[in-house]
């Protein structure tokens, strides 16, 4: 029998016992729905976790330090490579060179210093760090009160919550709910702060009478500079709840400046003293660079390249691998639970079709008497099982998607009541839809295997005698 005829007959047979076949199809739908729901939850959670990890900046960042910095992160590695004294300096040309490496998004200098801020005529001493524009998308600033810097060189600051509390003279009481950032931000936003800092100012030697630079300090003519105390007015534009530098422990900054602004101020850095013999007045020496990589998988490659250039590197790499492994295992388990419902549906199909054989015994006998072959009968029952599988699969995918939406909505209502930002726990990628439909179809065909074989083997003489 040709496929269109087969489909037509199968569908008309399904319509004949509409109630029973609908119930079986609903059984399949529920099975597929639970499979889709479980797997989309697994995938959604995995995507949520990796999105969070990406935003944290921990997994796509390589910290580059000079081997001349003897406080390095990775002491093991100092034993190989050139001796610290012969190693390269992290200066602007090096930064540009690293930024040009393949797969590198940007390489920003880490500018951080301890200095005094005056607010309301009271001095406050704290660690200040410069932030690149790309930090805007970091989740630490996702729930910032106020806004991010209006430009990369605007005289603006963002305060960390604990520093805001200090400015307002509040001390968080242990055991009580923490003060909300919103409450802290209200009196501070748009207020001015005065930052006192040490500026490194080049002392341009006047050219000598014959038009040549003085040569008394052979090769060090530009290294002379003086340190001048300066003040800078800064406007508070934001207060951030999360601690973007929690990884840095006690040296973490509580006040943040735009990167370009910080660079233009030529603030005295600890490395300036170390590199005093080679530092030029307006050529900065960086203590470290934060290199952002396009994709976490390319971290190792970038690290290796930078190491070959003669620098030390540091990144958190392996943690992400084990997290992905965890989610793969989670997916498998959720998939197994989802499949259990489909297994129940499988038995439902077998039952429905076996019942259909009993009920349609005579009809099968007639079809054989007028010339249907075993394979015609077998194909017909297969087609009925397959049609139930496809219909159940389509309804099931829709149902699973709807269940996901409802759970997502419910969870977000709960999150909102706990004053957390909304999240997407749910993801139904197209391949999951295709997989669910195919799986449902194949499971249904497998369920039709036994009934179809039985129907095909039916003895027509016996079947025709059956009333």
């Amino acid at each position: 029998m040709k496929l269109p005829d087969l489909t037509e007959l199968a569908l008309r047979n399904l319509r004949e016992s509409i109630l029973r076949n609908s119930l079986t199809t609903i059984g399949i739908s529920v099975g597929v729905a639970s499979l889709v729901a479980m797997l989309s939850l697994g995938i959604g959670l995995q995507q949520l976790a990796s999105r969070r990890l990406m935003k944290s900046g921990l997994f796509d960042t390589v910290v580059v330090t000079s081997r001349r910095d003897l406080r390095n992160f990775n002491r093991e590695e100092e034993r190989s490579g050139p001796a610290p004294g012969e190693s390269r300096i992290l200066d602007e040309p090096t930064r540009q060179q690293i930024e040009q490496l393949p797969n590198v998004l940007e390489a920003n200098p880490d500018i951080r210093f301890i200095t005094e801020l005056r607010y309301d005529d009271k001095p406050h001493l704290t660690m200040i760090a410069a932030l690149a524009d790309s930090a805007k998308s970091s989740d630490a600033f996702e729930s910032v009160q106020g806004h991010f810097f209006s430009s990369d060189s605007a005289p603006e600051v963002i305060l960390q919550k604990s520093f805001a509390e200090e400015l307002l003279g509040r001390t968080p009481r242990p055991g009580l709910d923490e003060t909300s950032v919103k409450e802290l931000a209200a009196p501070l936003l748009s207020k001015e702060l005065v930052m006192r800092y040490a500026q490194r100012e080049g002392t341009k030697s006047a050219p000598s009478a014959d038009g040549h630079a003085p040569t008394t300090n052979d090769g060090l003519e530009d290294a002379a500079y003086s340190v001048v105390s300066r003040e800078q007015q800064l406007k508070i534009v934001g207060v951030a709840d999360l601690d973007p530098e929690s990884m840095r422990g006690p040296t973490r900054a509580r006040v943040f400046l735009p990167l370009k602004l910080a660079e233009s101020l030529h603030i005295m850095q600890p490395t300036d003293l170390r590199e005093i013999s080679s530092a030029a007045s307006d050529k900065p020496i960086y203590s470290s660079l934060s290199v952002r990589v396009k994709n976490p998988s390319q971290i190792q490659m970038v690290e290796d390249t930078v190491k070959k250039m003669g620098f030390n590197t540091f990144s958190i790499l392996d943690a992400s691998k084990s997290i992905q492994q965890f989610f793969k295992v989670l997916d498998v388990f959720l998939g197994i639970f989802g499949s259990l419902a489909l297994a129940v549906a499988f038995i439902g199909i077998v039952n429905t079709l076996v019942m259909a054989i009993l009920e349609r015994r005579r009809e099968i006998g007639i079809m054989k008497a007028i010339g249907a072959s075993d394979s015609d009968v077998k194909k017909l029952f297969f087609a009925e099982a397959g049609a139930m599988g496809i219909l159940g699969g389509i309804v099931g995918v829709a149902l699973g998607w709807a269940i996901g939406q409802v759970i997502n909505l419910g969870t977000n209502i709960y999150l909102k009541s706990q004053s957390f930002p909304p999240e997407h726990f749910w993801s139904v990628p197209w391949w999951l839809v295709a997989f669910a439909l195919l799986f449902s179809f194949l499971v249904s065909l497998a369920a039709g295997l036994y009934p179809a074989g039985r129907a095909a083997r039916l003895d027509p003489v016996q079947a025709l005698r059956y009333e």
Partner: protein
Amino acid sequence: MASNTDRSPRNGAPAIHANQLCRHYRMGDTLIRAVDGVTLTVRAGEFVALLGSSGSGKSSVLNLIAGLDRATSGSVIVLGRNLAELSREELARYRLHTVGMVFQSFNLIASMTLAENVELPMRFAEVDRGQRGELAREALARVGLQARMKHRPNELSGGEQQRAALARALINRPQLLLADEPTGNLDSHTGTEIMNMVRDFNQQLGMTVVMVTHERALAERYAERLIFLADGKLAGDELNSVSAVAANVERQ
């Protein structure tokens, strides 16, 4: 008995030849010999009635000729083909193209309209979708049911259902028409109507007809030859003189 077949009015080639045909089966501890060593020959174009009381084995012989059942021993050769040597698939094709069957209880599929019932064998034969509708309409028109095409069997009288069953049996142009008590569920008037149609097919299309019946009068009225069965064995095989004369008269 064998000499009787030689006196057949039609001298066509043998269409059906059964040789020492047996169909035995077990029911509990007892062996039932439904058909027990039947030998007979039906020539092409003949109208033969298989007569006998219930349990005589006449329906079993018909099922063996129809390829619905397989012989325990002996052979059935239809149009030169030994049915015992055919695979299940080949036997299905034989039923589809060579044999048309009608039954006492009509055996139309209740969930299908008449047109769909008549079309069903063409679906199995993979006849083009476009042609099928036209052929089904013609076949139903031939048995006077063109107005009932869209009706389901339970909306029709017994006679109408049997006419539809006849249309279905003939749709793939078989050479053999096998009828199992075709008038058993019909009143005598409707039965006559059906039997006249069967006779027409036999005479006009030259189809070989084997009809199982327990009504001797019916057999004598239509069949050219009467074969009697009792306890699974051949009990008689004679030419029906009344019918033969009538048929000859009509033919001349």
